[in-house]
């Protein structure tokens, strides 16, 4: 999966509520109906990238099971980025669909 699409998936997940890495992975897997399973090597470098770009902010907190976990939440810039990425993605997908439908007519 391309980095753009990983980023969009993560930003969309975090738009619902702050999450730690495991939570983000679970959410993406559930919401995609088990289609997207993200490995550690994909998820965490993506989170690092988003954090450096200022789209997410990370914080160590104590989780519900009394364990230290790193929670990521969306920044204002991240929210704007999520909206623009989503728009670009939808445009691209609908263009793709138009081409496919035209071709199968």
């Amino acid at each position: 999966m391309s980095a753009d699409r990983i980023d969009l998936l993560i930003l969309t997940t975090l738009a619902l509520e702050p999450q730690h890495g495991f939570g983000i992975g679970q959410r993406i897997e559930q919401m995609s109906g088990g289609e997207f399973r993200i490995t550690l090597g994909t998820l965490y470098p993506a989170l690092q990238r988003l954090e450096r770009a200022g789209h997410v902010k990370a914080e160590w907190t104590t989780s519900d099971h009394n364990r230290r976990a790193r929670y990521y939440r969306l920044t204002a810039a991240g929210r704007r980025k999520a909206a623009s990425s989503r728009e670009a993605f939808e445009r691209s997908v609908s263009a793709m669909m138009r081409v496919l439908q035209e071709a199968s007519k």
Partner: protein
Amino acid sequence: MIGRWLWTRVRELAGSRRLDRQSADELAHHIDLTVERYIRAGHSERDARRLARLELGDAGLAREDLRAGRAGFLVEQAWRDARLAGRALRHAPGSAALAVATMGLGIGVSTVLFSLLSGIVLRPLPYPEPDRLVSVYQSNPQAGLPRTGVASGNIDDWRQRSRTLEGLAAYYTTGRTLVVGRDAAVFVTAQVTDDYFPILGVAPALGTTFTPDDFRRPVQQCRRPDRSGSGGDPLAPAVAAIIWRRSLHRRPVGHLRTAIVQGRGCDARRLRRGG
């Protein structure tokens, strides 16, 4: 924006070890939660660990990627290597000294060898079209001599029969003492055939080399010139510019025909005529 960008990098540089430990904790936390999920689904702990690893991929690689993504990764890497090397050398001063000496010697020897090689082999000869010049020797396998001098008769034969060479010039070197005024010095001199300079493609900076006149006069036998200056070598020598400047003080060389006082040898014409 720039401030934050800078701050992120400064923090990453300053606390790189702490950040690395944090990402290790974070990855371990993720793996633990995944294992627990598999255990809750009814797997044994061993199976759960195996399945988690299958699902999540290698945590070590992910940690490497995170480290590489941080600022100062290369600086950190180089610094770590340097510290490790320093520590290793301190623990074994003997082999450290040996290694330094070996490297010093190696570098020295290669430098000398390269200078020699570049001076002798790589730098082209100081003549036009140096790639067209070859040295021709005679060899005497019976005596175990790969390179010997060539008899002048052979040179004449080679000249007549050679199809590969445009020309063939010969020289014969010998040390001679040159007396200028009250000074005397030994120089390497050479008797050369009349086509020596044209074949090398060089012309004298001053004066002439051989002139047709030189060959009209009768051949003289080699003889030792006397101190009066008469009856010496009939030809004035061609003198290397550096010798002319340093030892002859830029004086004309015409008088040198009487100044060569030692060293036997014949004048150049004998070679030419196969004498």
